[in-house]
C-alpha cells in the first residue's frame, strides 16, 4: 500500500524546492490510459472505502485490471474533478448521489454510456441523457425509537411530521445530499407551495438538525430524539458497529406506505470521464458494478437495493417496486438550486 510514498522517501526538503523551481521532475506518469486496454484504470470514489473496496478487489481479481482508487467526499470530489477538467487523471467517478453526477454531466465532463449498459437499470434510476447510471438504490425512511414511538403512532405520510405531536422530536440533516434530493422530488410531485409549507413546518416544529444521517440514527437509538428522516441502511451500519443485529436495536426503520414521497428511492451511481470514453478496461469496470456479483454484494453487505434485475434485496426490506420511484431527474441542477434556496429560506440550513 505504501508504494506512492516510498519513491519519495530519500529526497530531502532542499530537492523539494529544486523540483518546485524546475516544475519538471516528471515522476508522475500514472493514470494515462488510451483507447487500448492497458489493464489499468483510475477511479475517483465519493463512496467510502469500507463499502467499495471489496467490490474493487473482486474486480481486480476477476479481470486482472489494476485499479488506482482515490477516496474522498462526493461533493468535494465533484468540485475537484471540475477543477481538473480534461487533464484529470480519473477515468471513472463513483458518487454517493445523483446531484453530484448531474453537476458533472452539466459541465460536460462525462461520456455517454452505451445503451447496453444503460438498459441494465430501470429508466428512473439513470440519467435521461445516458451520461451516468445508477448502481444501488437507497430509500428515505423514518428511523424511530421503538420505546418512544408506539407502532400505532407511526405516520402514514411524511407530512404528518409537521404536526404538534412531533414537536422537537424529529431529526433531519438538511445539508445532506439525500435530504435535498428528497425535497426536490417533493417539489416536483407535491408542488412548490406544499413543499415550502413542509420545510417551514419542520422549522416551526423545532426539527433537530444534525450534520448527517449517522448521528441522527445514533441519537434515535440512544433515545435523545424520538425519530429522524434518514436513508434506510444507516440502522444496519449502527448494528454492525455495535456488534448486534438490526432487530436488537431500539432504532427501527419505518417505510412510509402507499408510495408516499417520504420513502423516495435515491441512487448512488457511476459516470465515465470523457477521456475514458472507449477504454475497454473502464467499460469492464462499469459492467462489473452492474454485474450479479457486485450487485449481490451491495444487497447483502451494505443493505442497499440492487438496481439490476435478478438480484434480491436484503431480507426484511420492502420490495423496491412498492416504493416511490422518482418520476423526475434527480440530477437536474436547476431544480437542485431551487431546492437549496428553499431549504435556506426556511431557516433549516
Amino acid at each position, binding site marked *: *500500500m505504501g508504494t506512492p510514498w516510498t519513491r519519495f522517501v530519500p529526497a530531502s526538503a532542499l530537492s*523539494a524546492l529544486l523540483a*518546485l523551481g524546475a*516544475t519538471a*521532475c516528471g*515522476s508522475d506518469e500514472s493514470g494515462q490510459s488510451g483507447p487500448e486496454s492497458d489493464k489499468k484504470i483510475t477511479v475517483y470514489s465519493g463512496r467510502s472505502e469500507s463499502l467499495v473496496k471489496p467490490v474493487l478487489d473482486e474486480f481486480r481479481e476477476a479481470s486482472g485490471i489494476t485499479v*488506482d482508487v*482515490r477516496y474522498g467526499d462526493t461533493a468535494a470530489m465533484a468540485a475537484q474533478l471540475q477543477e481538473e477538467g480534461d487533464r484529470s*487523471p480519473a477515468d471513472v467517478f463513483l458518487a454517493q448521489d445523483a446531484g453530484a453526477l448531474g453537476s458533472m454531466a452539466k459541465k460536460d465532463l462525462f461520456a455517454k454510456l452505451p445503451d447496453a449498459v444503460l438498459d441494465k437499470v430501470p429508466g428512473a434510476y439513470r440519467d435521461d441523457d445516458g451520461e451516468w447510471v445508477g448502481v444501488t438504490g437507497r430509500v428515505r425512511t423514518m428511523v424511530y425509537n421503538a420505546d418512544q414511538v408506539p407502532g400505532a403512532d407511526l405516520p402514514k405520510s411524511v407530512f404528518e411530521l409537521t404536526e404538534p405531536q412531533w414537536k422537537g422530536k424529529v431529526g433531519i440533516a438538511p445539508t445532506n445530499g439525500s435530504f435535498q434530493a428528497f425535497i426536490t422530488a417533493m417539489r416536483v410531485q407535491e408542488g412548490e407551495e406544499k413543499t415550502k409549507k413542509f420545510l417551514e413546518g419542520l422549522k416551526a416544529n423545532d426539527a433537530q438538525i444534525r450534520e448527517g444521517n449517522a448521528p441522527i440514527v445514533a441519537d434515535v437509538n440512544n433515545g435523545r430524539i424520538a425519530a429522524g428522516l434518514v436513508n434506510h441502511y444507516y440502522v444496519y451500519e449502527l448494528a454492525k458497529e455495535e456488534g448486534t443485529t438490526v432487530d436488537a436495536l431500539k432504532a427501527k426503520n419505518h417505510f412510509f406506505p402507499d408510495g408516499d414521497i417520504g420513502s423516495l428511492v435515491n441512487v448512488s451511481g457511476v459516470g465515465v470521464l470523457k477521456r475514458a470514453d472507449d477504454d475497454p478496461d473502464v467499460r469492464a469496470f462499469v459492467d462489473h458494478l452492474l454485474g450479479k456479483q457486485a450487485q449481490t454484494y451491495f444487497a447483502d453487505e451494505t443493505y442497499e437495493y440492487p438496481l439490476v434485475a435478478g438480484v434480491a434485496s436484503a431480507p426484511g426490506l420492502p420490495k423496491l417496486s412498492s416504493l416511490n420511484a422518482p418520476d423526475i431527474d434527480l440530477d437536474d441542477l436547476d431544480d437542485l438550486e431551487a431546492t437549496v434556496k428553499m431549504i435556506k429560506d426556511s431557516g433549516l*440550513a
Partner: protein
Amino acid sequence: MRRFLPRPTLAAAATFSVGIALIPLAYLGVRVGEAGWARITDELITARTGALVVRSVALAAVVTAACTVLGVVLAFLVTRTDVPARRLFGVLAALPLAVPSYVAAFVWVSTVDGFEGFWAAALVLTLVSYPYVYLPVTAALTGVDPAQEEVSRSLGRGPWRTAGGVTLRQVRPAVAAGALLVALYVLSDFGAVSIVRVDVLTRAVFTSINLGFDRTGALVLATVLVALTAVVLLAEQLTRRRGARYARVGGGAPRPPTRLRLGALRWPAALAFTGVIATALGVPAASLLRRSLEGVSRPGSIAELATAARNSLGVALLGTALTVLLALPVGLLTTRVPGRLAVALDRLTYLSHALPGLVIGLSLVFFGINVAYPLYQSVWLLALAYAALFLPLAVAAVGSAVAQAPPGLEEVARSLGRRRSYVLRTVTVPLAAPGIGAGAALVFLTCMKELPATLLLRPTRLDTLATELWTQTSVAAYAAAAPYAALLVLIAALPTWWLSARTGVPTRGGG
C-alpha cells in the same frame, strides 16, 4: 540598516515564499472573476451573509481572548513559577493542539447532551487552539533576558509587578503572533463548527459545495474570509509598539530566570492546570477508549496502522521542512531588514490563512493542473499545500525568535570578516533555534491533522492517519477509528516533548 544577506537575495527569497502562500488568492481571483458582478453581489449582499460575518467575527473574538489568557497563564506557570510537576505540565499543555477540532467536537457532542451552538464551539476551539499562544509564549519566556527583570526588581518593583510590567511586555510579540494565529484558525475552522452546528462563514462555504455543488458560490463567500483576515491583520498591526527591545544582551549563554514562589497558591494552580488538561486531553482520551471498547469494528491490521502512521509522518515532515524553509527568509526580512517591503510580505503570508482547507486544496488542484502538472497528486504538491496553509505559523515563530537574537552578535561576526551566509548559519539560526523549533513543531502538528486538503491532494492510495480516521468515521465505525486518532495524538506528542526539552521547560531549574 543591518544586512546579513545581500538584501536583494533575501527579498527575492521572501517574495518567492509569499508567492506560494498567495496561490489560493490567485485562484479565488480567477474563479470569482469568472462569476461576474451580478453573481457576486447576489451572493454577498444578503442578510444571511451579514449574520454569518457577525457570528464568525464574534466566535473568533471570544476564542482569541480565551486562548490568550489561557495560553499566557499556562506558559507563565510553566516557565516562571514553582508550580508542582512543571515538566509534565509543560509537555501536556501543548498536546491538545494535536487533537483535530473535528475529533474534539465529536467527542464532546457524544459525551454531553445538547452540546451545540456558539458557546459549545467557543469551548472546543479554545481547548484545541490555546497552544497556538502557549507554545510561542513558552519559548519566548525562556528566551527573555532576565537582566531586565533583575533591574526592575532592584529598582523596587515586586515580583508580580515585574512579571506584569516587564516580563509580559517582553513577550508581547509572541503573544500577539499567537493570538493572530488563533483568530485566523477560528475563522478557517470547519470541523468543530459543523459538528456543534454554528452557522459561520466556513460552514456556509461547505454547504454551498455540499448542498448545491456550487463551487462559484462557495468561493465568492470565501472572499469574505479574506476580507475579514485583512481587518484582523490591520488590527494586530495597530497594537504593535515601536522601538521596543526584545533581545537579550548576551544570547550565547542563557541563564535561568528567577522563579516566582507561588506559596499558598502552588497547589490551587496545579489543580487548575490539571483541570485544563483534563478537559482538553482527558475527555477525548476517555471517549476514544470507550469507543474502542464498545464497538466491534476494528482497523484492518497493525500493518495498516503502521503504514498510515509512516505516511502521516512522512508527509508532515516534508510539509514542515518546506514550510520552515520558506518561512526563514520572510522571518529574517521582517526582523532584520524592516521596512515597507518586509511588512507587506509578512502580512501577505497571513492573507489566505483564514481560508478553509477545502478552498486551499481546490486552489492547489487548480495550480497543479494548470502550472505544475508533473507534481500533481505527488507528495510534493501536498507539501506545497501545507506550506500555503501553514506558512504564517512558521513565519511568526521565526520572526519572534530572530527578534530575540541580539543583532549585535551578528554585527560582531560580520566585523570579524565572516560572510553573511556563514553568520546566518552559525550565529542567527542557532540563537533563534528554540523559537524556530517551536514553529516547526506547530507546523508539524497541524500538518498531521489536516484533512480536507490532504484528501484532495494526496497521491492516490496514500492513506494517512487523518484520512483513515475520516474513512472509518464516515461509516460510523468509531471503534475502528479510535486507534488512528490515538496514534495521531501520540505521534504529535513526540515533537512536543522534544520541543519542551529544547526550550528548557523540563530540564532546567527546580520543579
